[in-house]
Every structure is written in structure tokens, then in C-alpha cells.
């Protein structure tokens, strides 16, 4: 019973902030007939909705996943993206999210949808950066496949990928230590760790890593170590255009390449990773003590 009267009630109330996804479907999606005969709209439509039945993909909230309105998740992502521009001023906080919501014409109370420590904003930013990097690497790969570019040697490829990814932090570099400390909170570690591993996997995938043996783990560990340590160096780098950081990166990648040629590969990799983590822990704890001033 509830199923049937939900759709007209929701759509006719014309959701205050969830906007229509596609402008082509100008007509009201539900013509307030009591019989809910669901007609699949022709184009620009979510493919998973079946044509039969009164209301497919019923989500328990009565149709906010319906065709012409964006979902809550999409609205949340829009708010977070708008909030990024306020991060240099307010930091990775609920205030930045509130300002972002304001620019979209929403009340500042909308920031209450997210966790108050700003972790949602940071995780959104990280996943957006990772997506951008994937796009970049995909484009480069296409060029190589079309023969318009040379395939780079592994060390150069890794260097460029890590540099490109780290450069995305530059506009937010002042507040980034704060973000890192939030990402290291126990609550956030599962999400931040999974984003990190998928980033590393991506880079190795485009680097042409075809191995399925135990090398897979060591390569991931090595690159994770390189990425993390370079990120930390970048936070404390004051050289013009971060040249010190890129030089550090170059050296680490070279070390890694050399290491892979020795027989005691696994052991030294383990040591390197442990040293990298120790260094990271020390740096983060130093940054933590600076935190009250940020």
C-alpha cells in the first residue's frame, strides 16, 4: 500500500534541493494517476530499472532514486566539491562544508549530513584525485597504444605518476597535515587505507605490471612506501615548485629499481617499508604537535 502512493507524493512535493538529472525529461515523471504504470523513459535512463511493476528499485524512502531527480549521494558529492574551494580558508572542517552548501543555495545546516570532523570532505577529495589520476594515466596509455607517444621506462613512469598525483595537493598543501592526521584516526583508517591501496594498484596497472607472483606484494609495498614518504617530504618542503620533493622522489624510485635487482629483495623491501613507516610515524607525530597552530 505504501509503495503505491509514495511516488506521486514525493515528486509532486518537488524536492527542494535535489535537482533534475536530465533536462530533457521536462515533463513531470509521475502524472499523479493512482495506477502506477511505470513507463521506462527512452534515453538517458538508468538501465537497471525494469519496465514492469509499480515501482522498481524501491529504496524504502519512496522513490528518491527515481529517474529524474538526483540521489542524496549525488547531492552530497556536489556539496563536498563546492566545499573544497573553502578549504584553504577554513581547513577541512564542517565550516568549509557549510560554506560549500551555501554556495549551492542550501542552508548551512546541510553540513550536518556529514561527520563533524571533516573526514567525509577529505575522503571525497582523495577519491576525486585518484579518479583524476586514473583518467590521466588512461589518456597517456591511449596515446602510447595509438603510437603517438613513447612507452616510458618504469622508473620514469612511476616518478611522473606520483608527481602528478602529489601536485594535486598543492592548492591545499597548508591544510594537508590536518587532513592526514584526520585520515589516521582509527575510525577513518579502513577508508583511507583502501583509497591508498587502490591508488597504488592503479599506478602499477598502468605501469604495465603483469606479475601475479609474490612480487605483486613487494611492488605494492615499495610504491606505497615511496608515495607516503614523498608526501611527507612535500609537507615540509619550501623550495620553489617543490623541486626538493621531486628530487627525493627520483632518488627513492632509483633505490627501488636497484633493490629489485638483488637477491635479498623481499627482506630489504620489508626493512625499507618498516623504515618508511617509522619515518612516517615520527613525521606525523611532529606534525601533530604543530597542529594546534594550524
Amino acid at each position, binding site marked *: 500500500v505504501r509503495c503505491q502512493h509514495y511516488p506521486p*507524493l*514525493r515528486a509532486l*512535493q518537488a*524536492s*527542494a*534541493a*535535489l535537482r533534475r538529472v536530465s533536462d530533457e525529461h521536462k515533463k513531470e515523471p509521475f502524472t499523479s494517476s493512482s495506477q502506477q504504470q511505470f513507463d521506462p523513459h527512452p534515453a538517458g535512463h538508468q538501465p537497471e530499472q525494469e519496465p514492469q511493476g509499480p515501482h522498481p528499485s524501491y529504496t524504502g*524512502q*519512496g522513490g*528518491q532514486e527515481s529517474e529524474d531527480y538526483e540521489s*542524496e549521494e549525488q*547531492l552530497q558529492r556536489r556539496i563536498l566539491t563546492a566545499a573544497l574551494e573553502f578549504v584553504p580558508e577554513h581547513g577541512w572542517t*564542517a*565550516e568549509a562544508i*557549510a560554506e560549500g*552548501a551555501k554556495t*549551492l*543555495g*542550501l*542552508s*548551512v*545546516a*546541510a*553540513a*550536518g*549530513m556529514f561527520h*563533524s570532523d571533516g573526514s567525509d570532505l577529505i575522503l571525497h577529495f582523495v577519491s576525486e584525485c585518484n579518479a583524476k589520476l586514473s583518467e590521466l594515466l588512461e589518456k597517456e596509455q591511449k596515446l602510447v597504444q595509438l603510437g603517438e607517444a613513447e612507452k616510458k621506462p618504469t622508473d620514469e613512469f612511476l616518478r611522473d605518476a606520483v608527481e602528478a598525483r602529489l601536485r594535486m595537493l598543492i592548492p591545499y598543501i597548508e591544510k594537508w597535515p590536518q587532513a592526514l592526521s584526520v585520515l589516521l584516526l582509527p575510525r577513518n583508517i579502513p577508508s583511507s587505507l583502501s583509497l591508498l591501496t587502490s591508488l597504488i594498484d592503479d599506478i602499477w596497472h598502468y605501469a604495465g605490471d603483469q606479475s601475479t607472483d609474490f612480487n605483486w606484494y613487494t611492488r605494492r609495498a615499495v610504491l606505497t612506501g615511496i608515495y607516503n614518504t614523498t608526501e611527507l617530504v612535500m609537507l615540509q618542503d619550501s623550495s620553489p615548485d617543490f623541486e626538493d620533493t621531486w628530487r627525493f622522489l627520483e632518488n627513492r624510485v632509483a633505490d627501488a629499481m636497484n633493490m629489485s635487482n638483488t637477491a635479498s629483495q623481499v627482506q630489504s623491501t620489508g626493512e625499507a617499508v618498516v623504515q618508511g613507516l617509522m619515518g612516517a610515524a615520527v613525521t606525523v607525530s611532529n606534525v601533530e604537535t604543530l597542529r594546534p*597552530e594550524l
Partner: protein
Amino acid sequence: VYQVFESVAKKYDVMNDSMTLGIHRVWKDFLVHKMNPCPGTLLLDVAGGTGDIAFRFINYVRSVRERQLQRKLKQHQNLSWQEIFENYQEDKCNSLGDSQVVVCDINREMLKVGKQKAQHLGYSEGLSWVLGNAEELPFDDDKFDVYTIAFGIRNVTRIDLALQEAYRVLKPGGRFLCLEFSHVSNPLLSRLYDLYSFQVIPVLGEVIAGDWRSYQYLVESIRQFPPQEELKAMIEDAGFFKVDYENLNFGIVAIHSGFKL
């Protein structure tokens, strides 16, 4: 309902403290903390008679604003003394950052007590007191950032109307927060709670406020109130999104939250 609160108004705060053994303060603090308002928020507190939520909101916003100003000043490292002085002056007149609370209650007596309390505690700016019915609010559409109703919604005859009004007066993106007694699912605790409610509370009512019947009514209205999931469904029906609830003290009290999206 009106008469219950007329007689209860003056002793309201004292009764709250004794009935809940003072925990109601924690519950209300938690509500404002969950709201996490930033300066510039416009709050409507319905059935907020004696102003508990309103005062907490003002305190919270004031401290957030102070921290904001401190951070701003820290950034301005090279200002001259003159400029720092001017900064302080203009911000002193804006200690609330344009935040405002409107306290709305159906009962004049409760509002009177609230106004007296405000004067006594020294709250002057950012507060308004309005007489109104939750089922038919005397405000325009899309006005408020946050709508709260703390321990008031069970006294509304048509809850769905109150929810619809809440939806109407909130801005897009605005938040609905409801703090109310709810259902305890733990059976052992539920028995203890029943014992306490039916044996102790009316007695306290008689002793402290001289009114057994009102508090008997109170306890019964708590039992009749819809449980968490049902209230969540009603809030969704009114049009709110991302509706969720949080149990405090194993369900003795629950905070429901929804957004007008």
C-alpha cells in the same frame, strides 16, 4: 494538554531535574552538539518554552565564534595595533555571528518563565519569543536553518501536521531535529524503567509540584508515543531525507534527524 502545562510551567525545570535525575541536561547538550551549529544559523525551537535548548544553542555558537575570531587574528601576523583594535571592535558587536533563535510555544506561561530565565541568566541578543501552535506555525516558508523540538512532539495532537509545518518553514538543506522519549528495547531495562516511571514520577509530581495527575498524564503519553522506527517513517512521509535516529540511554530517549533536500 494546555492546562497540564499551565500548571506545570513554573515548576517545569525543577521537575525535569528530579524526574530524570539531572540527565536531561546531558541529553539537551548532546542535541546541540549533534546540531553543531555554525555562526549565522537561524534556529526555530518549537515547544521550547523555558528556553533550555535556546540557551545551549547561544552558548555553543558564541564559543564557536570566539574560536573563529581567534583563528582569524592569528593569521594576521603583521597587523599594526590600530588594525587589531579595529578588528576587535567590529567583532565584539557580533559575538553571535548573526545567529538567532526563535522560541515558539503554545503556552504563554512557559514563554513567560523562559523570558524570565533569559533575563536572569543574562541572555539578551539573538533571542525571540513567539506564541504559536506547532501544527500551524506563524512563520513564512523556507525561513529557518534548523528546527528543533525537544520533549514537545509527544504533546502535539496531530504529529503529521507538525512535521509538515516543520518541513514548510525550513530552508532547502535545513535540518529537523527531534529529541523525545522513546522505546526501550532491552527487556530488563524496560522493566526497571516502567517501575520508575509509574511508581516514582507521579509521587515526585505530587511532592514537588503538588500535581499528581499531570505527571501521570506525562508518563502515559510517553508510553503511547510511537517507537523509533515508526516516528522515522512519519518524518520521511513529511518529505524529509536522510532520516535517522540515535538512541540515548538504550532508547529511553532518542534523537531523530532529517534534512529537507
